[in-house]
């Protein structure tokens, strides 16, 4: 509790930096990060104010958690303490947008959906369909490398962030990249910050390359009696000339969570009508195609009889939004569910889904999954039975069994699970990238480890 003393005096100094109105002392009901309640929340209004806050924190060894819309703060390890929650939400303007350039410069605290509306007026978009975009900020999405089904064809933030401004713990306001779509001057700091989970610096501005938004799309939902059949279809699809915008696999239990749960149940009591009575085993592969009537007709022709249903317009948008919100839907209904994100070579998608279907029941958990078969990014849910709340060790053992079944070179990070369980295993797991080198990079830029200490892999 050494930070209590330094917090008291830091409080006044923080107020002098950002203004009294933009400092909030926490109380018992305040927002917490896996149980750790930040002592104080500050809302700096400019990169310079962020710099002053970080400098102060660095001098006093105060742990800072950078935050945007608070949609992904529960991902990661359990922090020992969080002294300052640094919200970027006051930095929320579009700094520059010329539709002809197909680029936009946005302050980090702007909710993504707000930027999307501005781009939409010119029929453009940044093709990211991660969850909760009304709240999630552009900075937070970059920091977490968030993505949804559109990752299949567009990639993610890494591929469309062309410039970034950020503040380092020694109070430097630094930029990388620029406002042009092609640029190799200097190191690619955008790549370094994408998916760094706020562990390196506080992002304050992002320049995106933007794209023309497709004018017409149609979704073909194809049904298969087994995972194998679905994977075979995927292979044929890859070999065909078709170039769908999204290709998503949906496991037999997942459709239960692809809808609006109108009533929010108490997760401990909630028992869906027929959760366990096995539904007909049906693996779905959903394809979203772009193009004119002529192009879409060809999709229908080539896909043929495997298409179970076709979606268009509002129903189609709704369907994909449900896919994006799969994990939120699971978690809102089962507080104790565990969600794992995978990074796989694409041929390992099948084995990873098999591993899920095998490991989950062994630990009394129900498996459900959606995911991008073209990139190997799956969202796997392990859902506890309402009658049998799992113990902390049960999660740990299940994760370990699941990871043990994955082919080499795969990574599987536990994004969500009860915080009590997180202390029993490594939530990030193994990665093919040299961790020693990651730590060296972290040390070079945040030597005192004040940013998100104990939460990320470094």
């Amino acid at each position, binding site marked *: 509790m050494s930070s209590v003393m330094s917090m008291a005096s830091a409080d006044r100094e923080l107020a002098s930096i950002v203004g009294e109105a933009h400092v909030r002392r926490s109380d018992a009901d305040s927002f917490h990060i896996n149980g750790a309640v930040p002592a104080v929340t500050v809302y700096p209004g400019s990169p310079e104010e962020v710099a002053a806050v970080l400098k102060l924190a660095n001098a006093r060894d105060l742990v800072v958690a950078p935050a945007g819309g608070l949609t992904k703060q529960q991902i990661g390890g359990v922090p020992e303490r969080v002294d300052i929650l640094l919200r970027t939400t006051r930095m929320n303007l579009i700094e520059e947008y*010329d539709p*002809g*350039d*197909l*680029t936009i410069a946005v302050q980090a605290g702007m909710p993504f959906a707000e930027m999307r509306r501005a781009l939409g007026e010119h029929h453009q978009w940044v093709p990211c369909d991660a969850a909760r975009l009304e709240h999630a900020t552009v900075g937070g999405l970059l920091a977490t*490398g968030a993505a949804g089904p559109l990752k299949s064809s567009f*990639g993610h933030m*890494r591929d469309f962030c062309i410039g970034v401004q950020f503040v*380092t713990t020694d109070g*430097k*306001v*630094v*930029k*990388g990249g*620029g*406002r*042009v*779509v*092609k*640029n*190799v*001057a*200097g*190191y*690619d700091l955008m*790549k*370094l910050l994408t*998916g*760094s989970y706020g562990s390196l610096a506080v992002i304050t501005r992002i320049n995106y390359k933007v794209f*023309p*938004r497709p*004018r017409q799309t149609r979704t073909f939902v194809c049904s298969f009696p087994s995972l194998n059949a679905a994977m075979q279809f995927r*292979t044929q699809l890859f*070999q065909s*000339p078709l170039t769908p915008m999204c290709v998503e696999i949906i496991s037999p239990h997942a459709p239960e969570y692809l809808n609006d749960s109108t009533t929010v149940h108490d997760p401990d009591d909630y028992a869906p009508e027929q959760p366990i009575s096995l539904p007909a085993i049906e693996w779905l592969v959903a394809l979203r195609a772009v*193009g*004119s009537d*002529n*192009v879409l007709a060809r999709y229908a022709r080539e896909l043929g009889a495997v298409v179970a249903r076709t979606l268009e317009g509002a129903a189609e948008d709704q369907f994909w939004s449900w896919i994006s919100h799969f994990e939120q839907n699971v978690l809102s209904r089962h507080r104790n569910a565990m969600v794992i994100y995978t*990074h*796989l*070579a*694409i041929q*390992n998608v099948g084995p990873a889904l098999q591993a899920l279907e095998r490991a989950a029941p062994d630990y009394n958990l129900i498996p459900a999954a959606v995911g991008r078969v073209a990139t190997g990014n799956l969202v796997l849910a392990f859902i506890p039975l309402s009658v049998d709340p799992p113990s902390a060790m049960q999660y740990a053992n299940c994760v370990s069994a699941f990871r043990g079944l994955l082919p080499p*070179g795969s*990574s*599987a*990070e536990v994004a969500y699970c009860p915080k009590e369980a997180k202390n029993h295993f490594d939530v*990030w797991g193994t*990665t*093919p*990238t*040299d*961790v020693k*080198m*990651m730590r*060296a*990079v972290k040390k*070079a830029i945040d030597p005192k480890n004040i940013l998100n200490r104990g939460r990320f*892999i470094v």
Partner: protein
Amino acid sequence: MDSSILRQLKKIAGKESVLDQPEELMLYEYDAGVDVHRPGAVVFAQTTQQVSQIMKLASDRKIPVVPRGAGTGLSGGAIARREAIVLSLAKMNKILEIDVPNQRAVVQPGVVNLELSNATAKYGYYYAPDPSSQKACTIGGNVAENSGGPHTLALGVTVNHVTGLEIVLPDGRVVEFGGKAQDATGLDLTGFFVGSEGTMGVVTRITVKLTKLPEHVTTLLGIYNTVEDAANTVVAITQSGVTPAALEMLDGWMVRCVEANVHAGYPEDAAAVLLIELEGMREVVEEQAKAVSEVCLQQKAREVRHAKDEKQRQLLWLGRKTAFGAVGRVSPSYYTQDGVIPRTKVPYTLAEIERISKKYGLIIGNVFHAGDGNLHPLILFNNRDPEQVEKSHAAAKEIMACCLKFGGSITGEHGVGMEKMGLMTAMFTEDDLEVMIRLRNAFNPESILNPQKMIPELHFCREITGPLPKAKVEPVAGVPV
């Protein structure tokens, strides 16, 4: 070079793999750019282990090492300053694995870019980044420079196609970043490493994405009576909702230069031509070709030609890909620029270049990736005429100043290297550069690898990195430092 070091290099790599005679070293004192420096020795590594041993030796003896692929770079990145060792990866040129089901290939750094596409074509795949030097340049060099090319407009540059790297750090340690998966848990060091111009580590193995060959490809040639109309078309096409696979522009002077060289079929009286390539599903390409032709004609194109067959299409591209060589025929020397500007500023910037050309009395030809706003003005001069040399540098600076005025970049794909290091301070603040140096030092703390390249050592940074000579920082006219 110290004879004991030469002895040890020969012990590591074999006698025949070390060059130390002046007449041999002469061949390694330049790249495709303008700078010339003679290295102390050249060593050809054949295995990762040899690279590791060479790096360890160099670290222990504090001798700078400059990794080199085919030497086709345009910014001096592979040229060794002072008494350094050039570490050539050209003999590590095997394609280790073509993994069609995972859409990946694993290659050694010395594999030539085009060879990979040739080797994978029979499976229906290719390697998308296609620098103009793709017949010669190596994928290791592409990784170092984050190379682009005409077809990166739709598909992205090298970094968008690399998923895994094996790297030898300056102290000889061998590390892995990423693999065959699209991404990995933790920091994206793979993405961060690409484009680090040999200042962080030596790449010894690369995993790249393979891209499915498109079902259909079509190439259009838009012919214009004024450069302005062509430039306006570029803006109009990107706004129309079509993203071509490539969108290239050549001005009238370049057109005539290219025609004299290869007879690509460009009309010699045009003020500018646009080369537009569309690819994908047949139906999509046909619709887009129609839409793009209409946009061209709306923007006052004199004529829009469609390549009738594959032969004609290849010929149109031959003109573009050999444009630099064609200039070499008419001028003893030329200075290639690589500035980038926002797309909407293409018309204005071309007018500026025209003005600069007149001001200095030098011919400036324009051939560039219009869709990306990546300009390649070629400034022609006679390198035996000191006055012209000076003028060419002054003209280059004015063009750069113009790019930077619009929030552009000093380099889109050629890299900073030695050539543009002095311009870095025009784009980045001291704080920006200091953080970059700190990050580099995490990999390369003693600047053994490719010293004095890419990031200028400012006075402030010198205190951190030790006594390195200060880079020459030249102020750029019109740009606040």
